[in-house]
């Protein structure tokens, strides 16, 4: 294949990865930024989103788009609810202590994973895409659905940004992130904000999973890679920075796509990890993060 089309394919693949990664990592970043909780179970909320998408789309008969749309709405809501319960039962009781919540979320990771294994099973199951249009380029064919993932993710990111910067809820979240004690003194119900943010973070992961599942199948172990990549993105972009997360996701996604197409996927992972090390050494707060006060 010639260089031009080869690069185009690499860029397309990279953008799809970026789109899903940006949503997932944004969830992780929000939770850390506002609550100072490193949520190791984040990848499992992603997996739950995919598994629920399978369950919902198979329960609804008729055109595959119906089941998919239902999953796109319902799966994140259910995952958000589960996250809310987890927050109430576990994180709040630990007073959001940073070390204890790491251990607690590791526990949640295993509990969610094993529950999925018990009730969903070890198989990888496909979800039918809402449409299966194949875009025919002169050099190769490409899935139209994959392109729609990029658009959907961009829309969701803009929506999240609008909520954070233009609404009262967003203002309250940012105030809590900036200084939770002062926020509380001004009458902001900090614990409610925490619960909401934790649920929102899980919902972002779930919606990313629903978008990706028609091209990658639901499997109980699928949360591991997104978790690792999200951490990489969040460290590079700066914890708690929306702009940094999106920029880092595009950077990592595109470099992953291009390096793995032209060289090897392993090299792409090596370079991403090296990048994390460099950022930690030379700019520990991340590319767009501010130093903690």
């Amino acid at each position, binding site marked *: *294949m010639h260089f031009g089309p*080869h690069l185009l*394919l*690499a860029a397309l*693949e990279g953008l799809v*990865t970026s789109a899903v990664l940006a949503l997932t990592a944004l969830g992780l970043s929000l939770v850390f930024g506002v609550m100072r909780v490193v949520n190791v179970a984040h990848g499992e909320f992603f997996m739950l989103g995919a598994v629920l998408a399978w369950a919902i789309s198979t329960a609804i008969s008729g055109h595959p788009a119906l089941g998919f749309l239902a999953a796109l709405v319902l799966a994140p809501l259910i995952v958000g609810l589960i996250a809310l319960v987890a927050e109430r039962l576990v994180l709040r009781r*630990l*007073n959001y*202590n*940073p*070390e*204890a919540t790491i*251990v607690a979320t590791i526990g949640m990771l295993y509990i969610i994973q094993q529950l999925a*294994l018990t009730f969903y*099973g*070890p*198989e*990888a199951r*496909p979800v*039918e895409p809402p449409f*299966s249009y*194949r875009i*025919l380029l002169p050099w*190769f*064919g*490409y*899935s139209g659905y994959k392109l729609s993932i990029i658009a959907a993710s961009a829309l969701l990111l803009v929506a999240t940004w609008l909520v954070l910067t233009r609404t009262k809820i967003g203002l309250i979240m940012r105030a809590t992130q900036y200084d939770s004690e002062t926020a509380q003194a001004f009458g902001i119900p900090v614990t409610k904000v925490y619960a909401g943010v934790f649920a929102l973070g899980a919902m972002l992961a779930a919606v990313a999973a629903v978008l990706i599942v028609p*091209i*990658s*199948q639901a*499997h109980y*172990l*699928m949360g591991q*890679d997104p978790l690792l990549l999200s951490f990489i993105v969040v460290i590079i972009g700066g914890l708690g920075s929306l702009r940094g997360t999106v920029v880092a996701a595009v950077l990592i996604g595109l470099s992953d*796509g291009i390096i*793995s*197409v032209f060289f090897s*996927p*392993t090299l792409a992972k090596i370079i991403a990890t090296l990048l994390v090390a460099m950022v930690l050494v030379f700019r520990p707060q991340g590319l767009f993060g501010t130093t903690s006060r």
Partner: protein
Amino acid sequence: MTDKNGFFDLSRSALTRRTALKGLAAGAGLAVAPGFVRYSQAQSSAPIKIGFQSHRTGIGAAYGRWYEKTTAAAVKAINDAGGINGRQVEVIIEDDGTDPGRGAEVVGKFASQHKTDIVYGTLFSHVVIGSAPAAGEAKMPYFVVSEGHHVASTKLNRYVFQPGITDVKSQIQSMAPWIAANAGKKVTQIFPDFAFGYDHRDYLPPALKAQGAEVIAQIAIPPTESSFTKYFPQIPAETEVIYHVMVGPAVLTFVKELGEFYGSNRPQLFGFIDSLEATDINSPGLEFLDGSHFWEGSPRYAQPDDSPAQKAYRAAVGIDDNGAAVGDPKDVSTAAHMFGCWETLYVVKKAMEDAGYKGPEDRAKLVEATEALTEFADGPEHPQGPKTFNGKIHQCFGIQNISKVEGGRLNVVHKTKIEDGLYEPEGDYTTQAL
């Protein structure tokens, strides 16, 4: 980051000597409980215990599930006919998570805790390779249904056998002439990046070269990969045949993305059915496979010339004419591999009878009796077809099927002969000490 609430303060719940002793006493009490020694005085009537190392979870889960179904069916048939040496067969299943480290632990558990007579049933090559040393150390006969060449390579040890399914090297050698003559001369290989894939990587090029064809590119993909389009540009444009063999939970994605990439304007495809095991070939997006060819160990779809033994086997395992579970057409089996479980259990039965096997003290005799076997006749015990067995390399050799995708099903278009797949042994296990 202080530990204000003392979550990590271990001193609060220090283990006292008294609790430790209580725990030890309870453990010792359990170990001598009656259930653990139930059969020690009645060995003649005790069941023969087969430890089944199953891929219940991890990337091999779909195979594990069907290996369990086939095993259950075979054990029921054996027990209904009177068992082995007049004793019933009991299968004890442990999950190895399709993980080599866990696999070795499972073998150890069978040897020391369950005290099984043999261990059996492993598929994934890296698990076999990881578990074989543990089996050798415990002097535990280890019957695998793996397809990989590692047993026949004689790189493992005297306790490892593969008497129920032909190894990859032999499969490739017997099919290469057909590929070169019917599919094309310039072949690009796509294979999983671990031991099983390396068998394909190493043995296809020489086998094709002997037929005047060549491998022009080799693409290794990690078995845990979930997206494949990025690998396809590496397929050279002059490729006439794509030879694909993938495993793991993402096989459907692999084939779908191959279809998106090429559409109907594709090179010839020759695949190992591994790329679609446990997956419906009529899934949306797989239409482009029509007219392509697959290797099948045993045909997934019922064929017009199926023997009565094959029909009886399919009925016993519970698969319909489309190779899916009876009553659930979406639950597609791993028909191309799981017949090996059925056949391996009958080989174990034969060897135990030949050895006059009584219990674990006869394990060495069992090894020698298995090595003495030479042929398995086509029939209810070997429904996939006749086989020869080479006791020096612990490997059987059978016929292979090449099937064409036509009208939404796989029709066998070519059957190889046993002789096509024979090769010079690379070593001799029987010279190793028992």
